[in-house]
C-alpha cells in the first residue's frame, strides 16, 4: 500500500515537471483494494485492470521503475512507451492490461477465464472495474456469461463513489453494485474497501469458491479516490468536506494502526518499510527519467495489417 501511494505521489511530482506523457489516474485512497484482492491471487492467476490501474500493477509486483518509464513514455516502459499509464501490461505476472475503455476489461476477463478452463488450468481471473463501469452493457453481458458458464472470475468493483463528475447515486439505479449479482444468481458481497483484511477475506473466499468450480462472484469495495479524476482532468466538483471525511478513513493509516495494535509490526518496522519504499521510488523515478525516448522507427513496429 505504501509503495502504491508513494508511487502515485511521485507521478504527481513528475507531472508537475511536465514529464508525464498524456494522463494518469491516481489510485491514492484505494490502496487496500488492490493489495487486499491481489493477496488472494495464486500463481497462474490473471487480472484485468482499468484506467486507474497503477495499484493493481504494483500489488502484482510489477517493477515500479518500468511502470514509471511507461507513464513517462520511455523505451524501458512495459509497453515501450506505446501504452502510457492506461495500458500497462505484464502478461508474465498475470496482468492482462490496464484499459482506457470504461468496462472494456470485463468481457476480456471472462474470455480469459474461459480460455484457462479450456486449457485445464484452475486459475482464477480477478477483474477490477469502477462502479461507473457497472452501468456499461459489457458488465451485464460479461457477468451473465460468466455466471451461466460458472467461470472462475472474481469481479471486483472499486466503488470510489464518483465516476469522473458523476456521483454514484445519481447514475446507478438500485444503489448497490453488489446487489446486482443476484440478477445473475451469483454471490454478491459488499465490503469496506478501506479495510485490507476485509477485502482480502472476501477475495479469498470468492477465489476459493471459484477454484472449487462454483463460478464467479462479485465483490463491491467501498472506497474513495483522494485526488482529482486524473492529472489531465483535475477540476474538482466534490465537496471538500466529503474528501476530508474519507481522508480520515485512510486505509494505510488504518492498517498501520492495526498492525501495531495487534503487535504484528512495530512502529520501527513500519518506518523501515517507509524508508525502503522511498528509496525504491527514488530509484524508479531516476530510472524512468534516464530511460531514453523510444526511437521513432518503433512507431511502425508491430503493425501487421
Amino acid at each position, binding site marked *: 500500500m505504501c509503495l502504491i501511494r508513494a508511487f502515485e505521489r511521485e507521478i504527481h511530482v513528475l507531472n508537475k515537471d511536465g514529464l508525464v506523457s498524456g494522463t494518469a489516474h491516481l489510485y491514492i485512497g484505494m490502496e487496500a483494494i488492490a493489495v487486499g484482492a491481489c493477496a488472494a491471487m495464486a500463481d497462474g492467476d490473471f487480472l484485468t485492470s482499468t484506467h486507474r490501474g497503477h495499484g493493481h500493477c504494483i500489488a502484482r509486483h510489477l517493477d515500479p521503475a518500468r511502470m514509471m518509464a511507461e507513464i513517462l*513514455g520511455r523505451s524501458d516502459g512495459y509497453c515501450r*512507451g506505446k501504452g502510457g499509464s492506461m495500458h500497462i501490461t505484464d502478461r508474465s505476472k498475470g496482468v492482462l492490461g490496464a484499459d482506457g475503455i470504461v468496462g472494456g476489461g470485463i468481457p476480456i476477463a471472462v474470455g480469459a477465464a474461459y480460455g484457462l478452463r479450456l486449457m485445464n488450468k484452475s486459475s482464477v481471473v480477478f477483474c477490477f472495474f469502477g462502479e461507473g463501469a457497472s452501468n456499461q452493457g459489457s458488465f451485464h453481458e460479461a457477468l451473465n456469461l460468466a455466471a451461466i458458464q460458472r467461470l472462475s472470475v472474481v469481479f471486483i468493483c472499486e466503488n470510489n463513489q464518483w465516476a469522473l*463528475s458523476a456521483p454514484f447515486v445519481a447514475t446507478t439505479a438500485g444503489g448497490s453494485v453488489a446487489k446486482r449479482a443476484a440478477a445473475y444468481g451469483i454471490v454478491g458481497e459488499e465490503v469496506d474497501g478501506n479495510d485490507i483484511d476485509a477485502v482480502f477475506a472476501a477475495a479469498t473466499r470468492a477465489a476459493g469458491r471459484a477454484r472449487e468450480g462454483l463460478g464467479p462472484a462479485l465483490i463491491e469495495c467501498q472506497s474513495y479516490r483522494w485526488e482529482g479524476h486524473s492529472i489531465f482532468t483535475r477540476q474538482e466538483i466534490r465537496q471538500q468536506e466529503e474528501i476530508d471525511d474519507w481522508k480520515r478513513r485512510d486505509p494505510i493509516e488504518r492498517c498501520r494502526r492495526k498492525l501495531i495494535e495487534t503487535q504484528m509490526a512495530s512502529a520501527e518496522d513500519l518506518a523501515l518499510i517507509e524508508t525502503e519504499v522511498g528509496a525504491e521510488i527514488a530509484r524508479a523515478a531516476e530510472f524512468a527519467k534516464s530511460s531514453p525516448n*523510444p526511437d521513432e522507427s518503433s512507431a511502425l513496429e508491430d503493425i501487421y495489417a
Partner: protein
Amino acid sequence: MRQISFAVALNEALKEEMRRDPVVFVAGEDIGKMGGLFKVTQGLLEEFGAGRVLDTPISEAAIAGLGVGGALVGTRPVIEFQFLDFITIAMDQIINHAAKLRYMTGGMVSVPLVIRAPVCGGIGLGAQHSQSLEAWFVHVPGIKVVMPATPRDAKGLLKSAIRDDNPVLFLEHRRLYAATGEVPSGDHMVPLGTAEVKREGSDVTVVATGRTVSLALAAADRLSEQAIKIEVIDLRTLKPFDMQTISNSVGKTNRVVVVNDGWRTCGYAAEIVASIQSECFYDLDFPVQRVCNKDAPMPAAAALERSLMVSEEQIVAACSAAMSS
C-alpha cells in the same frame, strides 16, 4: 469582429439553439455540472436545468438510444461522446437505427439527432483516445458528417446540424478547442454540404479537413516563399461533400493533395482521391497525393505520436512533389 475560441463558439451555438427551440436537449457524460471535458457545454445546466442537460451514466449505447428515441418522438437531442473512440459501444444504435430508420420506414419517421464528439490524437492519451473514425460514418448511408476547422464554422455548422432533420455526426478536433478566431455574433449559420476556399491559388489544390486546414494554410504560406501558389479547400462537411468546389479548383490547378488526419487506408482521403480521379481524370497532371495519419494505433509517447500524425512538413513535401513534374 470579436474573437472567441472554438469551444466557446460551440457553446454559443448550443445556447442559442436551446433558447430558440425548447425541444433541443443535450445529454452525455460529465456535460452538466462539469460542463464537459472540453467545456463545450459549460453553463448549460445552470441556464436550462437538468431536464435539458442530462448527465448520463457511463452507458454509451443507452446515450445513443436516448438520442434516437428522443428524436423519434419529436425532440432534438444533441448527444455527446466524451471521445469518439467510445462510440464503438454505440454503433448499433447509430448505424442500424439512427442512420436507417427514415429509409427503412419508407420516409415515415425522421431522426433529428446531433452526435458530437472530439476526435484525433496529439495529447498523449494513447490508442483508445485518439481515433478519428469519420471514414466509417461517411461510408454508411443515412448520416451526415461535419468537421469544422475554425470557430466561425464550428458555430455556424453546429447550429445548422441542430436544425437539420436527419442525424448529423459533428466532429471536433481536440486540438482546436482552444483556437480562437472571428465569429459573427447573433444567428450566424453555415449551411451543411458546402466547402469553402480558405485560400486561393493556382498551382496546387489542397483539399483539407478539420485541423489539417490550418496546417495546409501554414504550408501554403511556406510554399508562397518559393512562389508556389496553393489553393486550400476546407471541406467542412465530409458528407455530403462539395465535389463542385473541388472540381472547379482542380480544373484550374491540375494538381491535388488531399489531407486528412484519420488513417490512410480506406480512410476519408481515399474517397476524395477516388472521386477526383473519376471526375477530374483528364485534368490531372500528377497523381493525387494523400497526406494522412500513418496506419497505426496512436502510441502514448509524444515523439512517436507526432511521427504518425499529419504535419505541415508533409503537406509542403506533397505539394512540392506534385509540382515536380
